[in-house]
């Protein structure tokens, strides 16, 4: 086991900061080899001391964060494989046994239509998981990074257009606009998709909630890209002034090459931090929308919808299991998101500790 080097001063964002000591202050005489000896240079750089390996090692040392990461990974994999791991079908109604408490056959009990709560909770997690992946990785990340890179690197009017658009979207009343967005586009798209299904003979697009997932991810991405774009733009502006970017340009590297190799690599660590910190936000937005009734529509299970339906005081008193299990699941998920986001921030931004 290597010693913990978290105390060492590390460069914050990859190679953005040059060493403070100028070359004239270094004492080169120490490095002179005795006559006759040839310095053997390994063709591979020494491993284990790079910024990345130090950051990951710092992260791996946080036990709670690692536990949370495993819980999140387990939830993601388990919920994506939900048809395989759930004991029942989430639509399977059993009116003989409604609102039963936890039992061996139904560990989380059954809801008011006799559907197995464990199954529905797992499928509800799947909904959240899918939305976080499509919206955060697909929408926010790609949209934010691409627009941020363009804005920071090209500057001038591209920068102005992207930044002004972002300021407009970020000063929107988000929830209200999302409500209007969904209620405007969903019915129209629903008709279009129904026609498409009739024409092609497919029947799973609406049934599996693909339509809902698309609309919500789109809505969240529209309002969520700007924070990421601003972050990337700031990093690019910082990197653009650096000598190695200038050197690459002087050597005739193309814009795409400089963006990909020099800029993207430098912004990777703030990106990881902001994605892991943003997980809870995206998951929360999906839950809020479903809670209000414009997110994922039944019969596709959503934890937000479950919490709304079972949140009535009458249900709380008589059948607390109907709400406590979804609440517990959401709490665990959010707790893990927060702990992980915090630990990742500590590991990749050692300065801010």
């Amino acid at each position, binding site marked *: 086991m290597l010693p913990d080097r978290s105390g060492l001063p590390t460069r914050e964002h990859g190679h953005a900061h040059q060493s403070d000591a100028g070359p004239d202050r270094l004492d080169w005489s120490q490095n002179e080899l005795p006559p006759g000896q040839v310095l053997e240079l390994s063709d591979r750089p020494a491993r284990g001391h790079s910024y990345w390996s130090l950051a990951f090692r710092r992260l791996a040392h946080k036990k709670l964060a690692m536990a949370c990461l495993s819980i999140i990974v387990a939830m993601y994999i388990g919920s994506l494989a939900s048809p395989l791991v759930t004991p029942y079908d989430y639509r399977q109604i059993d009116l003989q046994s409604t609102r039963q408490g936890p039992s061996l056959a139904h560990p989380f009990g059954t809801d008011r239509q006799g559907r197995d709560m464990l199954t529905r909770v797992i499928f509800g997690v799947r909904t959240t998981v899918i939305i976080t992946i499509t919206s955060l990785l697909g929408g926010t990340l790609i949209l934010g990074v691409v627009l941020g890179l363009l804005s920071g690197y090209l500057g001038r009017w591209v920068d102005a257009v992207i930044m002004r658009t972002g300021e407009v979207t970020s*000063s929107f009343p988000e929830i209200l606009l999302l*409500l209007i967005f969904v209620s405007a586009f969903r019915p129209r798209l629903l008709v279009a998709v129904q026609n498409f299904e009739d024409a092609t003979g497919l029947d799973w697009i609406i049934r599996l909630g693909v339509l809902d997932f698309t609309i919500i991810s789109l809505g969240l991405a529209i309002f969520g890209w700007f924070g990421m774009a601003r972050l990337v733009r700031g990093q690019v502006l910082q990197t653009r002034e650096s000598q190695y970017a200038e050197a690459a340009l002087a050597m005739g590297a193309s814009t795409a090459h400089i963006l990909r190799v020099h800029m993207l690599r430098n912004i990777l660590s703030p990106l990881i931090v902001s994605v892991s910190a943003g997980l809870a936000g995206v998951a929360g937005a999906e839950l809020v929308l479903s809670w209000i009734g414009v997110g994922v529509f039944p019969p596709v299970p959503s934890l937000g919808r479950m919490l709304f339906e079972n*949140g009535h005081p009458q249900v709380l008193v008589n059948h607390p299991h109907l709400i406590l299990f979804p609440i517990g699941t*959401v709490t665990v998920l959010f707790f893990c998101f927060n702990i992980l986001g915090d630990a990742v921030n500590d590991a990749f931004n050692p300065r801010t500790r």
Partner: protein
Amino acid sequence: MGIYVIRRLLWLPILVIIVTFITFVMLRFGPGDPVQIWLGQHQNDEVRERIRAQLGLDDPIAVQYIRYVEGVVTRLDFGESFKYRNKSVREVIGSRIWVSVQLNLAAIIITLGIGIPVGLLAALRQGTGWDNVIVAIALAFQSLPVFITAPVLLLIFALYLDILPTSGWGGFFSPKIVMPAVVMGVPGIAIVVRLVRASVLDVMAQDYVRTARSKGLPERAVRYRHILRNALIPVTTSFGFILAGLAGGTFIVEIYFGIPGVGRLSLEALNARDYPVLLTFAVISTTLFVLANLVVDLIYPFLDPRIRLGAGHAS
């Protein structure tokens, strides 16, 4: 400074017009007819046409939009509600918005009133058990959604202990406000605690704090005049962020606790396709957001004279 404020304020109407335009287009693109919804079971083509003409819904859409904007800009007239006939939007929203303002104010008081002292305590006891416990709790509660805390608090305090009412609204000084305000305040508390703690620790390491101590100032004066005052600067910046978080919580809390505020009203307006009310909400919330950010930026130089507004680069 004056030019800076004017420039920011000039940006506001442009922003409001863009937001209302997009809202308007989306509302009209969506299905649903306010008059049809208002008539309910009593559908009658003749009546419907008459009401449509009264409300100006039979004009071209561009004309309707320009009429709305013109009313707002020239007379601050937001039009007439479609759902509550013969009532102006201002009347409909006026009473509701006051309720939401009170609720949000109570939530902010709870957030800052608990968050700042607890954050300070954690920082002053850095590395001890107190600090660890506070940080762990803050981490656990941070961004815990409102719809999780609401049913749990309701279950404990209203249904099991029976010391707080379950729902309703009775003004700022009624016990009915306690639970909704706490529910809305909790996620903010966690953010403020962590922010204050980090920022106090940062300030405590500064030279001027050492200077203050070494010139013999009493510990009390050092803490409140030098440490806390400077440590609160990051809190003011994040204030806009906290407000935005509250806005999201308002919807859910008002629906859940049956509070007649703007969050519930906007859902009702959406279901009734009450376009003028929804547009006015867009105008109000955009304006509030921009003004809140402006105020935060203006408070900044008072708290920290090192920051100068509108200056191109540090001098």
